[in-house]
């Protein structure tokens, strides 16, 4: 080494570095990032574990499937708990909400992605985002004081009086027209998930390569034909994944539903009449649940809600991955 030419100044490289700048810092950095990441994994796993553990008393009492099948929810006298009414309420409201919301939401998305001139598109897009940002309690207060009374006066009451005159057999199916009930909650849910579906569907359609469209135009297709034949088939994976994520949103939506569904814990449910969902019964009864078994049953419902949400999210992730179009976008 001696024969190498000594440079005029080698003082820079001879300044000793602190350990933190050599190796210690990197080790600490990785360990910290690792544990912060690990904490998220523990949170997700912990959520399932905690809900199951806290609900185990109820599962033990009624059996896991017995609890899911049980249709009696009586925290007062018999202390019998079954989740079926809430599972039913959740599934029915969210599926119908998706059914109502899907096509209008898709229509807006098509309009935004394919038709709207730049400035109108920009305005509507911002409005959609704005609406998606409305907290669900705010939607709920509008539902309680404006929408539910309006539905009662303009829709339920006329139908109810019509049916009591002409088809009395329908009355129990339609249910009490108090305004708060399954239909009201479903419509509100549909309104709430529309912006969500629109945003995801629009992103999926914007990802369609230009060539795809140009090829169809080249064949002399009209704009609508291009959309139907080139754009939608290409974007359908993203659109479907978006719809399923929206279903997940609807399943977990708590406040607006709890404020509007009327909170009736027992079958039979009717079309207009009050009902309950898994989140709504939890939010309504959790604070007041005094008995261990009652609290545990609510936790058990939480666990079932976890499982259902997980299944829906995994399904959406599967579709997204299979037809990778929107990627892992956060909305």
């Amino acid at each position, binding site marked *: 080494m001696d024969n190498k030419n000594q440079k005029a100044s080698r003082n820079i490289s001879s300044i000793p570095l602190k350990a933190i*700048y*050599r190796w210690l*810092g990197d080790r*600490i*950095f990785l360990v910290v*990032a*690792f544990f*912060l*990441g690990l*904490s*998220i*994994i523990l*949170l*997700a*796993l912990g*959520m399932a574990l905690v809900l199951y553990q806290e609900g185990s008393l109820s599962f033990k009492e009624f059996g896991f499937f017995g609890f899911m099948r049980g249709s009696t929810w009586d925290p007062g006298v018999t202390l019998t708990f079954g989740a079926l009414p809430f599972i039913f309420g959740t599934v029915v409201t969210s599926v119908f909400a998706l059914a109502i919301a899907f*096509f209008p939401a898709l*229509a*807006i998305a098509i*309009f935004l992605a394919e038709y709207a001139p730049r400035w109108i598109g920009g305005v*509507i897009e911002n*409005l959609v*985002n*704005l*609406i998606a*940002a*409305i*907290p669900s*309690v*705010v939607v*709920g*207060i*509008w539902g*309680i004081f404006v929408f539910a009374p309006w539905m009662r006066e303009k829709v339920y009451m006329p139908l109810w009086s019509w049916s009591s005159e002409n088809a009395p057999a329908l009355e129990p199916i339609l249910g009490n027209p108090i305004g708060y009930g399954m239909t009201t909650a479903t419509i509100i849910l549909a*309104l709430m998930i529309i912006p969500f579906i629109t945003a995801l569907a629009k992103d999926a359609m914007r990802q369609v390569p230009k060539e795809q469209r140009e090829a169809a135009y080249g*064949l*002399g*297709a*009209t*704009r*609508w034909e291009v959309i139907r*034949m080139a754009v939608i088939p290409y974007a359908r994976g993203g659109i479907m994944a978006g719809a399923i994520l929206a279903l*997940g949103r609807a399943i*977990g*939506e*708590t406040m607006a539903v709890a404020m509007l569904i009327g909170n009736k814990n027992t079958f039979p449910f009717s079309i207009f009449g009050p009902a309950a969902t898994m*989140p709504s019964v*939890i*939010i309504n009864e*959790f*604070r007041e649940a005094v008995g261990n078994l009652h609290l545990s049953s609510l*936790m058990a419902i*939480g666990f079932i*809600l*976890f499982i259902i*949400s997980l299944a829906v*999210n995994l399904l*959406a992730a599967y579709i997204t991955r299979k037809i990778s179009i929107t990627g*892992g976008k*956060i909305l």
Partner: protein
Amino acid sequence: MIQGTKSINRRRINDRIMFGLLVLSTVVVMTPLLIIIGYVVINGFNALSIDFFTQELGSPARAMQGRPTGLMHTMLGTIVVDFMALIIAVPIGIGAGIMLSEYPDHKLNPVLRIMNDTLNGMPAILKGMLAFVLVVKPMGTFSGLAGGVALAFVMIPIVARTTESALMAIPWAIREAGLAIGLPRWRVVLSTVMPAAKTGLVTGVLIAFARAAGEAAPLVFTSFGNNYMPRNWTGMIWGPVDTLPQRLYSLAISPYKEWHTMGWAAGIVLLTFVIILFVAARLLTRKKNS
């Protein structure tokens, strides 16, 4: 294939009809959504008063007798709880985001990504239940801290994801350039990558914050609610505390007319707060892109 049996005129007409239908459904759907905002704005502004911002709620009797009542304690409580949520969520979310983007080959990451998405997809009410079991039960009391933890559970997965994509947006070459001049990896991330990604990072935190700030479900049985101002400041952390979304819910389902009115006022304040956060996030994104 397209030049099929249908005449070109028919197809033109079809095209027009579909366009009309699209515009129509856009208008039909946007209308009720705008009506919601309209109602909240009009009713909310009418219900706002000086007292609303300067008084505490007290018992229902106070409102019914027309004595001054308001939600000052609620707004302060919201700030305290949201702030605690931020303090908890930002380090965890950003740390996990760094893990995902800066150690792309690490064995933890595939699992972390799946679990983060799972957590993000879970209903907020379950996050409240988790915080109830983890914080409320051991402490033996509802508390602002529990509410902050619950909201943090809402924010964490969002911050992790937005941090990852903000850091990934910085070219890998920047990191190599840093390493090539003999910087340790942590220095490269903290001093070159993260400053470059600053706008994206802040935007992500804002989005997460806006999402959490509107949530009521995780708060109802964690921070619980409180009609009064806690006697001292720490009472907001260690004891039950009021927050806007949860108070809005309680007011709306209460049987008192006066509280319903106050509910609209709470609605406009909450809506304004959330929308300001979202608009700030959007403006930042636009600034970054231009």
